[in-house]
């Protein structure tokens, strides 16, 4: 009977009838370590490669990080033009019409790049339905819109000086602060709260703090650092999907 019981259990597990008895311990992938960017802007040798996870398995390290369970039934939604515009507007405290206009004239989100941003316009263009999936140019367009919005915010904050809404902690007319400076960390932490509504992880802070330097290791302008950091956070998949 013991053999028969085992057979029955195996059949039940295969049919999903008895799930709890069938769950095996899964080995979770190890979290990636903080990445050091080399002079060429690519992950330096010796650092863990910060690749987008592609489903490769791996064991969870028994280090300080708690295990992260991979979602097995995820169905992330693409943040389309209206939600994207609203969230970006809120994150940078800019009115929608100031986020991005191509050559200062035509709205990026509502007109020029409506299709790749998942919009539709049945009247003018006959686009009755939005695209079901992001287009090939969607990621490029998103970068362009976010970069424009970040720069728009930056220029407003430049005029506001220390009272700048997002970049007030930087001297936008000077060089970028050191990677471990309070201004650097404060900006990055602020961007995470604004775009992703959470605190930045130490490893993430370390990665983004290196944007204060160029590929040769020289300090960049505070202006460029502001735009670069804002671009990196604002175009993360965590902001673009939900």
């Amino acid at each position, binding site marked *: 009977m013991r053999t028969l019981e085992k057979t029955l259990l195996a*059949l039940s597990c295969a*049919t999903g009838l008895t799930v709890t008895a069938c769950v095996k311990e899964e080995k979770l*992938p190890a*979290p*990636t370590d903080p*990445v050091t*960017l080399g002079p060429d*802007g690519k*992950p330096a040798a010796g650092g863990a*490669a*910060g*690749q*987008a*996870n592609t*489903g490769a398995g791996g064991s969870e390290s028994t280090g300080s990080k708690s295990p*992260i*369970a*991979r*979602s097995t039934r*995820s*169905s992330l939604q*693409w943040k389309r033009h209206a939600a994207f515009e609203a969230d970006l507007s809120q994150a940078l405290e800019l009115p929608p019409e100031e986020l991005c206009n191509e*050559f*200062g004239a035509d709205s990026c989100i509502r*007109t*020029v*790049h*409506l*299709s790749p941003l998942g919009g539709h316009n049945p*009247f*003018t*263009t*006959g686009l009755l339905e939005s695209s079901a*999936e*992001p*287009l*090939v*140019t969607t*990621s*490029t*367009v998103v970068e*362009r819109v976010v*970069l424009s919005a970040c*720069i728009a915010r930056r220029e407003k904050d430049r005029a506001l000086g220390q009272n700048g809404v997002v970049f007030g902690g930087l001297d936008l007319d000077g060089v970028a602060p050191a990677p471990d400076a309070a201004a650097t960390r404060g900006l990055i932490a602020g961007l995470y709260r604004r775009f992703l509504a959470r605190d930045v*992880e130490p490893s*993430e802070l370390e*990665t983004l703090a290196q*944007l204060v330097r*160029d*590929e040769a290791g020289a300090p*960049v302008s505070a*202006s*460029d650092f502001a735009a*670069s*950091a804002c*671009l*990196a956070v604002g*175009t993360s*998949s965590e902001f673009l*999907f939900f």
Partner: protein
Amino acid sequence: MDKKQKPISRRELLQLALASGLISSVGGGFSAPARASELTMRAVEPKDRKLLFILGAWGGASIIDSFMPVSVSDTGDPFGAQAMNVFPDEGLVRPANSAFRVPSVLSDYSIFAKPSFGIADFVQAHGADLAAIGHEVSSVNHTIAQQRSLTGAGINRGRTLMEAMALRYGGGMVLPNCNMAADGYIRHGADPTVPTEARHELISSPLLFATGTHGSRGVAGAPSDALVQRARAARKSLEGASVFGRTFADDARRQKFLNSRETLSPQIEQASVFDKLLLTDPSKIDPKYGVSLDPLALAVRDMLPDIQSDRVQAQVALAFLLAYHGVSTSVTLGFSQDAYVKPDGKIVGSPIAFDFSHNNHRVTQSLMWSRMLGLLDTLITLLKKHDYMGDPSLGKMWDRSLVYVATEFGRDKKRGFLSSSWGTAHDLNNGSIIISPLIKGNAVYGGVDPRTCLTYGFDPSSGVANKDAVMNESDVYGIIAHALDLDAPAARRFPGVVR
């Protein structure tokens, strides 16, 4: 004596499980539904590429109002002809050496502007490469019929002609299949194995489409390219390290997006299509943006005087540039439902395009055919003039091009007795036109029954008209697939039409 009950054996248990369908009998295990794996696009040398241009004639462009008209004399019944959609004998012209007899420009266009370019003008310019095909369609619903005009009603595994082109010639191209049309003309095909890169890229703003091909070019105050790359590298690291990234590492939509961002987007940027495709008014670009129009783009703008206000003129310009620069192998253009009113107030395009025939058939058909053929004349002139990718060794673009005017359906063949102005509904009987040096042009394939104004088909092997032959969307698809050497095994071949 009672039969002693035996305990159920393993064999019996398995048999019961099989019978109940709990396990598959094949291999003794479970099989998950197979996922369709995407096809791989193979790269093709520029010298072997072909080009397809499709213009979606929204609303029902009637072939008997253009390239297969019927005259009163043709009917043999002058009285009965007054209730049919036929033309007075003097209303038709036959250009010299042409197989086509076509309607002249009308004398009165009601509220619309009289066209300056007629159907006869198009025949004179491009008639040698022009074929009209009599056929029927299978739907009088706009959206469905539009889609079927591009899929051949599903003859090729549900793939659109554009997808088939991209699969055949688009490997290595950054945007092999671009679509600026509307409604059913922008629906993807039904074949799930068609890779993302072969599906069309929707373009909503032809003049400024180029700006969407680069993440920072033309953005005032942007960091240098090197710093933007550095920010991208940091972002890539964060994607793999964040809790969000690790939790949703297996999400298909996110994976696809990231893969596109890491592989396709850099290719598009490196191809420098931004500078090649920008078409907006150069006088309105502030120097602070650091961009200017390519000389070829400026020359194309000069050929299209209303490009700033006429969306379809803008489409023509972009379609040419996409093909010229080797960005695309298939470009789809199309009318939308908006009327086109020029800045001077003249209405040169009817609302709901050809479908305004519901209100005024004769005027709408003449107006829209003239407008459409005028636009195609500009496109074909550009294709005849320029070498593919600017390389004389590759020959003129026209030598490798095919233009297909896709439309939903025909219109009613009858009118109110003696009506000079009437409306028409949708009709399954119609025809299409193809213009290409790859086909035997200056020919009408099929014909029209002058008593009913219904078109009929032809023999595919000889091209000879056959009054008993009924062609349909799949045959139009087959002609195009044959001419362009597309992979369409279920479609018929047409040696009588294709060179």
